[in-house]
């Protein structure tokens, strides 16, 4: 099946945060609202960003950045959520298969079988998965964007687009076949370059084997707070691709070796005994 993806065009985004609200509403991520009425003193963080970060109940949030190249202030918006990597660190380390690649390419998540180990949180190059965690008992559950495929809330299976895409007023978010969105994204980047945005680029086409959320940017990814050339950490590779296979070989050889030793030793020792008994009688 053709891989699906989301294309986010930062140059079209108005930062209305409709996607953020639609994401919460569709996925039933209601949360405690920290208002003065709820006993939480208001805090001025110097930004329109709210809430301050992704959380187990905030799978998508809009980031606001102010930059001033050559003294001209620019206000940049960036969509922060799961990037749905092809080469996904979280899928690589998830011991239970709770995080897995959907047949349409993105990273789906079966929360029921999450063990709460939190490996995905440390393996994600984008710091996306979050969890509620009891530090003493270790009881935890991870959460992240499921590309609207949460069981019983599965929009994709119903042929619908993700909630964030559906709600986006300026059509800065688009859903469709990944290959078509790459072509569309490249066209927009070319148009931006023609307009004088010489650093314009399409982020996510090749990163980590290809992301299933791609970005049309009018400047370097770093300016938008996106990691340039994100990689699976060396520790993840050393652990998953080296140590774990070695563990299987060592464990297997140990069990085989002990079984072999038992058979040989028993036969030999019985023979010795018989010899002794024969000598005695």
């Amino acid at each position, binding site marked *: 099946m053709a891989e699906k993806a989301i294309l986010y065009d930062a140059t079209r985004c108005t930062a209305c945060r409709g996607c953020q609200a639609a994401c919460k509403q569709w996925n039933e991520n209601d949360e405690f609202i920290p208002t003065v009425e709820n006993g939480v003193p208001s805090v001025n963080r110097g930004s329109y960003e709210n809430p301050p970060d992704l959380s187990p109940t905030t799978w998508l949030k809009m980031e606001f950045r102010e930059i001033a190249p050559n003294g001209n202030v620019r206000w940049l918006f960036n969509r922060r959520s799961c990037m749905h990597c092809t080469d996904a660190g979280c899928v690589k380390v*998830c*011991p*239970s*298969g*709770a995080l897995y690649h959907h047949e349409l390419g993105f990273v789906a998540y079966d929360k*029921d*079988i*999450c*063990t*709460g*180990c*939190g*490996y995905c*949180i*440390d*393996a994600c190059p984008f*710091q996306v998965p979050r969890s509620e*965690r009891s*530090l*003493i*008992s*270790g*009881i*935890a*559950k991870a959460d992240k964007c499921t590309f609207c495929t949460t069981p019983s809330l599965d929009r994709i299976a119903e042929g619908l687009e993700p909630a964030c895409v559906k709600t986006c007023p300026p059509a800065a978010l688009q859903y469709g076949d990944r290959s078509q969105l790459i072509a569309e994204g490249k066209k927009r980047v070319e148009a931006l370059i023609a307009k004088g945005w010489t650093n314009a680029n399409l982020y996510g086409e090749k990163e980590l084997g290809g992301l299933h959320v791609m970005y049309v940017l009018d400047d370097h990814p770093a300016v938008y707070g996106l990691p340039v050339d994100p990689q699976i*950490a060396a*520790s*993840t590779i*050393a*652990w998953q691709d080296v*140590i*774990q296979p*070695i*563990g299987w070989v*060592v*464990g297997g050889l*140990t*069990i085989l070796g*002990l079984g072999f*030793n*038992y058979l*040989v*030793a*028993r036969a*030999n*020792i019985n023979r*010795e005994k018989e010899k002794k008994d024969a000598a005695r009688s």
Partner: protein
Amino acid sequence: MRQEVEKYSKPTRILHWVHLVSFCVLFLTGLVLFVPGLGIIAQDSWTRVIHRIAAAIFIIAPIIYIPLNWKATLRGIKEAFSWSADDIGWLKAAPRYYFLGDEAGMPPQGAMNTGQRLWWLIVLVSGVVFTITGLVMWFAKTTASAGVLQWMVFFHDVAFILAGAMLLLHIYLGVIHPLMTEAWKSIYKGTISSEYAKKHHAKWYKEVTRGKEVKS
């Protein structure tokens, strides 16, 4: 009646069993994260809660044992790090002994033979590695950097592979191997017969009997 000599004191035996049982629980609840197909039985964190309870016992048991048995602890640690030419001889002769039952080349051994001492050293080193990396993963999960936490898992896994494989060998030699007829008794009742001691731990037997033959 056969003469018995004490091999392991009661506190040492209690520590052994508490540590073994807690380690087996840690082994099994850790294994479910190693085997992708088993991960599913760990859902809702319950194996991780048991892992933590067992970890607490695993760490606290020696902390109680050490100050109460200071001399035995020092002797044990010294023994883990004292290696001699006899150990090379033992390693060379061991395959013939364990496979063929041929004792001819086996050098006389102390309270612990070379193999036991090797395992004891792994228990000490992996115990420290497990404890440090485990405590970081447990209590610094939300504060340590992702890189640090990933390397902690890595070294926890390395210790797991080494100590886990050697644990299988340890249990095999203690319970199943046809020649180790009294290893089980030594750690269960605390004593071994003088014949077994002479055969398997000649150097140690000489020390405890101060050269005098114990009459059977």
